[in-house]
């Protein structure tokens, strides 16, 4: 009788061997945080006395023009300044992962371990940041598109016209749900004329990161699965520079007092700490971030509401 693999599985062979490679399952890694001009960073709330900061706007910069006087000696009335403000409240977000000592010890060379889990915290924060961004953008006061109707090139044009009519300065950015982008592409196929969609090339992706889908009529298009849904529709949006802003809080050495044996690493805007729970033989990896975001000026954004 030959020696067959099937006969060896009891004592000599494995039913399934784990591959050495560790892959990341499909996830939307789009990140708007590092796209130049897409969102304004307004610094930290550190040492300021509050977790909420008020951004002040005033009608300067030529908002109030000179007026021609009726006569040479006309007494000119005072023109009051128009002011408004927007609040950004910085709040905490966090992610915790625990891994047991035995799980670490039995791992392969390329496996989940405290180091890898800690390094991944920034990606998770970026996902949170994007989700916050897409949710904030859904509060646009003016929308184009039609409920229950697929997104079309016409909707895209309407969005551009709306921003241009409001004299919104560029560059313009367009954020769409993948469903909206797919419908937009389908509509684009039926287009004629000189307008041309420039898809994201390898080089462009390298600069801007995942989520950048291409450029059409000078507007950069970003595709995000975090774009929210309202009324059975997706609420994408197009906006100009200066629409969004965010602030953070960054912990300093004072917070580390008494942290004992934990290892704290400040990664960008995220604080990652690794701590051993010796009584449980578990390593705790904790990521903390403090961030707040706001849609600063409604006039600079238009929602694109189309079928989900």
């Amino acid at each position, binding site marked *: 009788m030959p020696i067959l693999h099937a006969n060896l599985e009891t004592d000599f062979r494995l039913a399934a061997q784990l591959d050495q490679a560790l892959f990341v399952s499909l996830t939307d890694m789009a990140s708007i945080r590092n796209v130049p001009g897409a969102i304004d960073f307004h610094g930290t709330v550190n040492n300021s006395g509050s977790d909420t900061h008020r951004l002040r706007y005033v009608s300067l910069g030529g908002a109030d023009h000179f007026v021609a006087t009726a006569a040479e000696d006309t007494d000119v009335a005072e023109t009051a300044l128009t002011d408004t403000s927007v609040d950004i409240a910085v709040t905490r977000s966090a992610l915790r992962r625990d891994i047991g000592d035995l799980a670490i010890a039995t791992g392969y060379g390329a496996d989940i371990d405290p180091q890898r889990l800690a390094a991944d915290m920034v990606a998770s924060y970026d996902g949170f940041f994007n989700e*916050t961004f897409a949710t904030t953008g859904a*509060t646009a006061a003016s929308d184009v598109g039609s*409920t229950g109707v697929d997104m079309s090139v016409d909707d895209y044009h*309407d969005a551009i016209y709306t921003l241009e009519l409001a004299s919104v300065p560029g560059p313009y950015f367009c954020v769409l749900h993948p469903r909206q982008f797919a419908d937009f592409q389908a509509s684009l196929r039926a287009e004629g004329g000189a307008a041309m969609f420039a898809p994201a090339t390898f080089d462009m992706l390298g600069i801007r990161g995942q989520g950048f889908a291409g450029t059409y009529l000078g507007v950069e298009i970003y595709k995000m699965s975090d774009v929210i849904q309202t009324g059975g529709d997706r*609420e994408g949006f197009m906006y100009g520079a200066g629409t969004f802003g965010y602030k953070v809080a960054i912990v300093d050495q004072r917070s580390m007092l008494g942290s004992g044996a934990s290892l704290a690493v400040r990664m960008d805007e995220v604080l990652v700490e690794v701590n051993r729970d010796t009584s449980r033989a578990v390593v705790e990896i904790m990521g903390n971030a403090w961030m707040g975001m706001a849609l600063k000026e409604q006039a600079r954004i238009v929602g694109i509401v189309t079928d*989900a």
Partner: protein
Amino acid sequence: MPHDFAAQPPAKAAPQKVTAVTLSDDRLPGKPQPKFIYAHHPGNWEFVSEETGFVPRISKVPLRPGINGCRKGPQGHLPVLSRLRMEGWVILNEDGPVKVSSPTGEIVDDHGYLLRYDGVRGATYADVWSRPFVVGAGPSARVDWSSQYDREGWNAWRVFLRESGAVPPPSPSVLAANMRRQERRSRRRIAEAHDGAPHVQAIVEHETAKFNAMREAAAAYGAKVRGRKPQAKSRVVRAAKGKRTNVDA
């Protein structure tokens, strides 16, 4: 109390019937959605159909700490709502009357639009018109929120908001801007329709018909597009066949 040996079960008790425990999890997969409130900005209206006319567009305002000045704590959302009111938004009460479709397809009255679902990763909030369906299982499971959405109920509610006065009537200026936008859409590809491409003809006809319907609906609010007259469908068809027309004039 003295120990009663007679009351103890025998060492080898007879097998007892038990109900098999089935592990089930009816919580929704995917990322949790934050609590929200619906609001309407007076400058945001849309024309859905001839039956509904112009209806208010409704925005979902997330009440999540860290967004638009929302703070942590039970009253943390108040600054968001007060700012919206200051900017002219109408906040729609989450406990107010709504219209939804019944299983038989009729529009019926109900109350409250906000629902809370238990999710694998925390509570998720949706409106009453959402009909979540879980597709797949395990790590690849996802929730389809949109394909079974009660659009009829959603639109009926928006009509109700307009007719009940819950939101102020649309300004003629806002409707005129909507119509100008629609007019641009109907005219943008008229030149290609001249070339006889059937799909472009269909688009132009659809957009033109919608524009004409919008004009009729807007007339009730005193809105009009300056210097334009409704285009008869036959003229658009003639345009599509390449004959001279003044549609684009």
